[in-house]
């Protein structure tokens, strides 16, 4: 049964079917074989609906909406100006600014692809002018955008939290540590690169201009205050924080900056609705799929075959990391989370791992996989946005992927990188 379901899924996926079909087909075959016919298909629909119903999932469209509003406005540019005015004149300052701006924009938007566009778009031409190689620039942009996936709000974390029954608030806080560690390591690499290649430095920004940049960036900085502060301080649940972000984005872009009129707002809502539907149909199909595989004990069958019971916690974490990393090299991160989390759920329970720690590792792996050749989805975003051939986009990625992979190994052996802030806030 496990073999049939998984091979159907992989074949349909590779043929290029819309991703909901492999999930629906696998679930449907599962229901058919388990109940000996089409008698229980209504149960499948019921699981489908149960999948999209959890109240915590409402945070997904609301964060997308808030970010969608902000992406059309000026927040990205303001954040870039802020970082540039402080570190732009250092060795490798432009590259470090790019990484830092990606991290800060991650606090506004949970999407790596939006970050590639919003931060990479304006900064790539300037890095090229300053003398950075294009291969380095593109690799930096797509890999630094991954930090956005770890910094709250993170769509991946919300979905992981809902399907694994883990506190989304704790996951959000736990993502900050690894995100900042990656930023630090990327910055060091940028500095080394700039010294070795002799990239000239930018002029120093005088203090009055810096103060002006700070003032201009204060508005977009309200997002991390609402999300991190609100959740950390126990004021907001993640869903409430998402609603507060929508309100904040609306006040900002419609009343303060007036970049968005009513007509644009409706178009933004429609675009958010479209993205939401595409994600939620997968979440629903994923829920039906996960119900059927746990009912049929597929996880035990698959993981038993690779002998996961003798591995111990560290071994399990390595298997999880590798599975998610490979999955995301080929398929959309959300689908990978939907398919693999229920498969690993029983073993995570059995070995007694902290689900927040596991969630952070999974989201990190998912982010890395998205920027990893051959088929990571951020690579194709970069190809579409910057109109560069595939080979140019992936050429510079190995050092970044090496850094990211070493962070994931560190995270496996030192859970405190993620859990330190969580324990500070919740324990």
């Amino acid at each position, binding site marked *: 049964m496990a073999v049939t379901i998984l091979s159907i899924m992989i074949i349909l996926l590779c*043929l290029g079917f819309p991703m909901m079909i492999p999930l629906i*087909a696998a679930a449907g075959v599962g229901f058919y074989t388990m109940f000996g016919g089409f008698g229980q298909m209504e149960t499948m629909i019921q699981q489908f609906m149960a999948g999209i119903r959890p109240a915590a999932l409402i945070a997904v469209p609301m964060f997308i909406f808030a970010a969608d509003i902000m992406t059309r406005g000026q927040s990205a540019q303001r954040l*870039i100006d802020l970082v540039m005015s402080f570190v732009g004149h250092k060795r490798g300052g432009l590259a470090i600014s790019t990484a830092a701006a990606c991290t800060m924009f991650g606090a506004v938007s949970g999407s790596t692809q939006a970050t590639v566009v919003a931060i990479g778009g304006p900064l790539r031409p300037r890095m090229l002018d300053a003398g950075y190689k294009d291969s380095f620039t593109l690799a930096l942009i797509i890999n630094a955008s991954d930090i956005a996936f770890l910094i709250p709000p993170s769509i991946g974390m919300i979905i992981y939290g809902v399907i694994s029954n883990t506190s989304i608030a704790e996951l959000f806080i736990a993502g900050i540590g690894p995100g900042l560690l990656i930023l630090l390591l990327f910055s060091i690499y940028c500095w080394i690169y700039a010294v070795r290649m002799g990239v000239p430095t930018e002029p120093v920004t005088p203090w009055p201009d810096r103060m002006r940049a700070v003032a201009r960036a204060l508005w977009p900085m309200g997002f991390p205050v609402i999300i991190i502060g609100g959740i950390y301080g126990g*004021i907001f649940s993640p869903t409430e924080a998402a609603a507060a972000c929508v309100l904040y984005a609306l006040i900002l872009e419609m009343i303060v900056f007036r970049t968005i009129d009513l007509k644009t707002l409706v178009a933004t809502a429609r675009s958010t*609705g*479209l993205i939401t539907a*595409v994600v939620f149909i997968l979440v629903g199909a994923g829920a039906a799929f996960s119900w059927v595989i746990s009912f049929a004990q597929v996880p035990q069958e698959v993981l038993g075959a690779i002998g996961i019971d003798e591995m111990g916690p560290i071994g399990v974490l390595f298997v999880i990391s590798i599975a998610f990393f490979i999955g995301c090299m080929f398929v959309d991160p959300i689908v990978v989370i939907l398919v693999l989390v229920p498969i690993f759920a029983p073993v995570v329970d059995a070995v007694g791992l902290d689900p927040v720690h596991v969630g952070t590792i999974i989201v990190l792996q998912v982010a890395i996989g998205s920027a990893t050749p051959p088929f990571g989805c951020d690579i194709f975003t970069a*190809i579409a946005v910057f109109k560069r051939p595939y080979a140019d986009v992936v050429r510079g990625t190995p050092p970044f992927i090496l850094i990211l992979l070493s962070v994931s190994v560190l995270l496996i052996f030192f859970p405190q990188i993620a859990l330190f802030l969580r324990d500070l806030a919740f324990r």
Partner: protein
Amino acid sequence: MSEQQPEDRKTGGASLSTEGVPSAEALAAAGAIDDVAPSAYRSDLPGPLGWIDNGIARLEGFLLAAGVLLMAGNSVANVIGRYFLGQSIQFTEEVNQILIILITFAGISYAARHGRHIRMTAFFDMMPGRMRKLLMIVIALVTAGFMFALAWYSWGFMMTQLSRGRVLPSLQIPVWMTVVWVPVGFFMTGLQYLLTTIKNIIAPDIYLSTSVLEGYADDEQEV
């Protein structure tokens, strides 16, 4: 603050650089934002069928936008109610549940119409043109089949809810009414994929949906 706005907008609000602010097209290409307005959609169907199709496209677009705006209004009102007026709205969760079902099932059809469902095209892209076309016909047809089957079973699901006569606890709305969109959404999506199959059979190129060509648009253009 507001008097400096017009100038701000023109320069993209940047004091250091104004170049390269991503255009709406770039964002759309990245799937980061999406400006597929229903007014931009033109049905291929002949005569009155085309008008109906265009009308449905507009209705789906309207439902999507309205669903998200209502959900935002509802969630924001709840937060304001809870923190500023000390009273949360009892039915917020139920309203949001109704809306998320509406958004999801109006949206899957809308996404099918605009060829926006996520696919893994890595291997598909490597195939020669004739094979891609054949495969696209198979994909669209099989997808349509799955959607019609789900429409059928979710119709049954809705009828079961109807016969049980349950209502939502605080809104007192019958549960079956909240899931009406499910069979309708699956059916409309199936219809879109069926039309895409036909389009691929009768037209020379490869189509993702009746109005969207397959492949990356204008990839030779330099930035």
